[in-house]
């Protein structure tokens, strides 16, 4: 169903996911995602990057968007409907048609014992109402978009393909349903550097020519900068800064974003580090209640940062979760 003009394509409001870890009699609550709020517009296709290090919660966020995890609290809506409340039948008939995943490891995406085209055939049969020769045409079309053809792919097992090819086939499968949103979890991190560009360029093309929005999860800031329009930077479940990518990465406001950006080794010896960065103190894994999660390592930490949690303040068209910008 077509979205209302002002209704976002994807929206999360204060989204939280808490994992309960039991070790013997001790129980710990671990907030993988903590009050995350992002929004993707419906009117223009966007590539929205969610960037962070390991443990930042970006993968959990992606899985909640895909419906593979249920939120502990907060709202997650796609085209106005709450994803967590969809029945399996609604998911199969509507949601999977609209939202499709691309996973990190192209070789884990397919069963090693099956030919890869079986997944594409299954998707076509379920979502394009195709039979017989129509299915082949459908597959050829989708594979064509990613630069492959059915003849090349037919009969192949995953281990006969290269990482780049397998990932493209994974994207082609996602395209068969003609989705509005693709959730890509670290889609290029397992590929060779020289091949990443082709996949990233493909995402840009999908946005421009096929009107597909992409939620791009990554730890690699350089690829986010190249591909995305907007970016949200995550730290231990929080979104600490969100906004247009050229501004957030070109002129980072949040101290953590700054630290991240400075720590990326650039592939240019002229931009090599000249000064040693002082290592931030090791982070406490489960902070005591209260306080900014970055306070222990922040060069600009004030007294109140250890006691109060900052809100997300609007600055220059972005949102920054830091007292410096109150």
């Amino acid at each position: 169903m077509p979205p209302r003009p002002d209704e976002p394509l994807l929206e999360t409001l204060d989204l939280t996911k808490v994992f309960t870890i039991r070790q013997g009699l001790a129980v710990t609550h671990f907030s993988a995602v903590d009050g995350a709020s992002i929004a993707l517009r419906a009117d223009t296709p966007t590539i929205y990057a969610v960037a962070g290090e390991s443990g930042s919660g970006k993968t959990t966020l992606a899985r909640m968007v895909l419906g593979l995890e249920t939120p502990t609290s907060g709202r997650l809506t796609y085209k106005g409907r709450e994803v967590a409340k969809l029945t399996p039948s609604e998911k199969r008939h509507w949601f999977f048609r609209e939202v499709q995943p691309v996973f990190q490891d192209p070789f884990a995406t397919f069963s090693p014992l099956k030919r890869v085209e079986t997944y594409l055939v299954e998707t076509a049969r379920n979502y394009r109402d195709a039979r017989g020769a129509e299915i082949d045409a459908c597959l050829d079309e989708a594979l064509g978009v990613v630069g492959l053809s059915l003849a090349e792919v037919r009969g192949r097992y995953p281990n006969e393909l290269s990482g780049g090819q397998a990932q493209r086939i994974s994207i082609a499968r996602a395209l068969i349903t003609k989705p509005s949103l693709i959730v890509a979890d670290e889609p290029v991190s397992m590929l060779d550097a020289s091949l990443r560009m082709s996949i990233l360029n493909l995402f840009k093309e999908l946005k421009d020519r096929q009107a597909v929005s992409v939620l791009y999860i990554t730890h690699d800031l350089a690829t986010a900068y190249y591909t995305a329009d907007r970016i949200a930077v995550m730290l231990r479940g929080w979104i600490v800064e969100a906004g247009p990518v050229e501004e957030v990465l070109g002129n980072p406001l949040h101290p953590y974003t700054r630290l991240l950006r400075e720590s990326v080794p650039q592939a240019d010896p002229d931009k090599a580090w000249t000064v040693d960065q002082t290592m931030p103190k090791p982070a406490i894994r489960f902070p005591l209640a209260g306080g900014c999660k970055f306070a222990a390592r922040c060069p600009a930490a004030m007294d109140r940062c250890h006691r109060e949690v900052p809100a997300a303040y609007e600055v220059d068209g972005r949102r920054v979760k830091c007292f410096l910008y109150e």
Partner: protein
Amino acid sequence: MATIRDLLRYSPAFRFGAIILAAVLVLVALSFVSPFDPEARRVVPRNQSPSWQHLFGTNSQGQDVFWMLTHAVRNSLVVAGLAVLIGRGIGVLLGMISGYLGGAWDRTLSALVDSFIVIPRLPLLILVAAILRGELTLVTLGILIGLLDWAIPSKRYRSQVLTLREREFTNTAVFSGSRSFKIVMKEHLPFLIPFLLADLVSGFLFAIGLEITLSVLGLGDMNAQSLGTMIYWGNYYQSLLANRVWVLAAPVAASIVIVIGFYFASVGLTTYLDPRTRLARIQVRG
């Protein structure tokens, strides 16, 4: 099939097992052309040692040991086959349902399975057999053994499916629009097959062992010929004390040979079907 050809070529274990099993099957085939009815007694001179006329000699009931053995092998295999089909069949189904659906289904089924595991099988079987004494046919015995042997296997299948469910390709299948049943059958079952085959063989051997145990104790179908009943009657007529070794040697040797044959064949088969070696083979050729 190409599989069998490959197996025979590369797996010495399978070759060995296959030869033995071929011999066993020959025996089973011979049982259909046996000149003697398995239930008939005093058809040949009693207690004769092995000779050209009676290859394995004759027993105290006046039966030819060799031909009785062919029937015994056939019957024992039938009992075991039934037991395995029923037992592992239930085990696989319950295990896969439990593993994939999770939640309340899993909890209920697991509780059921756990209570079954606690039941001591041999004593129960002895009890039931003793109660049903005289009315226990081979088929009933097979079904009974099967009904007691699904619990532990089902736990193993459940744990396999639990791991498989977490693998990314399960999600791919979900997002391709497949329904749960199809996912379990097409995505997960292929991984379970080598495990299943090994399990079938071990179930088979367990059932044969159980049948022999019961019959030796005199609780099986004493009128029919089986490996266990041959041993029972051999003991009953004190074959060992009277130095008529051949009466016992035949069924005992046959039991051992069958077990060994199945075991080796299954070892060869499971190594071949293991997804890891299967991948290695595909890689080498590809």
